[in-house]
């Protein structure tokens, strides 16, 4: 165990001393790999920020039935009976939720900057409403049910809410798939860059490698420093990429805040959390290690 540890420590020191001979080359390679990694990390950051919005919203079709503002509470609650009968006659499986005007106002005050605007109006301008969540229902039937609900007494507006949510969910899915393809392509780029950097290192150290082999060094002993160099390159590049994205979010958020204000919303992008960042660093390190592994083995096999 001690011998193993010593040899790995020696390999790490060797890797470090090789890097310190030409730090410029190493840093340049780090930058190239960081740029390659930054694109999928930026995409992932965007998706991770958009995903909570999408997942908070139900993608089940929802119909909101807004009652006329003047409808008495007793009439509003009594409407649930014919409403449920209508859904049953239409063979539709649904959850019906009665949202009073007070509940609706409270919800808006919690989540939106419209609360201040509403308070200036005096009183509660919102109507009572029924929110109907449909399951396993196709779009045509949703529309048919919506048309029927309009015929109920005291109903003011019937709104089908789920279409744009579905679009958002579909868009997120497309983005995820595109991101996956991009990530795979750029992972190959990372491996190729590290492969080439390692190849050049091995060529420049050929004399040292020959001497080490004559002195009884195993292939593992010779390969190890290059594996560490590749892993360090990957790790540093991953860190740089994460740093670049985190820094770029600041000016971006300023622009997004201005845009979101126009829609009376507050939205900003946050950097990836600790766990996803750690996973990305592990992946970039492994990619660096893969590139070095493939290069060293190929180069030294050719030399033999």
């Amino acid at each position, binding site marked *: 165990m*001690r*011998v*193993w540890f*010593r*040899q790995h420590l*020696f390999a790490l020191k060797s890797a470090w001393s090789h890097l310190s*001979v030409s730090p410029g080359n190493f840093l340049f390679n780090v930058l190239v790999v960081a740029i390659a990694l930054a694109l999928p990390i930026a995409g992932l950051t965007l998706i991770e920020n958009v995903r909570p919005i999408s997942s908070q919203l139900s993608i089940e079709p929802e119909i909101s039935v807004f009652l006329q503002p003047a409808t008495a509470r007793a009439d509003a609650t009594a409407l649930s009976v014919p409403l449920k009968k209508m859904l049953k006659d239409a063979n539709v499986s649904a959850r019906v939720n009665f949202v009073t005007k007070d509940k609706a106002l409270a919800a808006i005050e919690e989540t939106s900057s419209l609360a201040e605007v509403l308070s200036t109006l005096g009183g509660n301008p919102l109507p009572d409403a029924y929110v109907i969540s449909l399951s396993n229902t196709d779009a045509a039937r949703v529309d048919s049910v919506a048309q029927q609900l309009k015929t109920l007494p005291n109903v003011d507006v019937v709104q089908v809410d789920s279409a744009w949510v579905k679009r958002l969910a579909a868009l997120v899915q497309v983005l995820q798939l595109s991101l996956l393809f991009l990530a795979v392509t750029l992972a190959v780029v990372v491996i190729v860059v590290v492969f080439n950097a390692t190849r050049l290192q091995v060529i420049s150290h050929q*004399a*040292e490698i*020959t*001497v*080490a*082999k*004559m*002195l*009884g*060094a*195993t*292939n593992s*002993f010779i390969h190890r420093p290059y594996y560490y160099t590749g892993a360090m390159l990957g790790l540093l590049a991953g860190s740089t990429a994460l740093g670049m994205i985190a820094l770029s979010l600041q000016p971006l958020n300023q622009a997004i805040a201005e845009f979101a204000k126009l829609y009376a919303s507050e939205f900003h992008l946050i950097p990836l959390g600790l766990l996803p960042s750690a996973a990305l660093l592990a992946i970039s390190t492994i990619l660096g290690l893969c590139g070095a592994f493939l290069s060293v083995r190929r180069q030294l096999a050719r030399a*033999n």
Partner: protein
Amino acid sequence: MIEFHNVSKEYSRDVYALRDVSLSIAPGELIFLAGPSGAGKSTLLKMIAGVERPSSGTVSVNGQDIGKLKAGSLPYLRRKLGLILQEQKLLLDRSVLANVMLPLVVTGASGAEAENRARTALEKVSLADKAHALPQALSGGEQQRVAIARAIVNRPQIILADEPTAFLDRDNANKVLSALKAFQSAGVTCIISSHDEQFLDKASRVIYLSNGVITDSWHSAIAA
């Protein structure tokens, strides 16, 4: 200890480095491989170290057939040997001491042990005061003695030296050969190739090669 049975090495059609060589080297001998350039001396040494494989015949070291050794086993063979081959220059980016420590680092020795043994090896070749110098600051003879120190630091059973006195003046050449003779006196088998025949009287046995064939072999009366 070292045996060659009908060993030939063919590089391409009709280009032989060694032809049907058979010899036996006992432990503790000081062997000189003599002959002109291209006689096959270096190839013979490289075969013992497993750097070259015979095209036919067998080379065995302590009963182990080198030709059949897997690539993964060769490092462990070489750790028992002290090699001073022409391709094995000192590494110029590290000190003399670090160069001599390298064989021990490769085997996983601790830093302290490697340093102690390296200093002892440098003392044996009278270069203890040059431990922290860079190789390029040393003369040719001193560099060769450092190479010897590196070769013996692992306490090998066999030392193989390929033209260790090449490009050295008489005085330095004598120092190098004296160092090797001292190790042989301690029981280490030394096989030295050289086309410089002025040192043949220092060997216990001389094997003369020409065109890949052993043409003569004799025991040195003076060394005996």
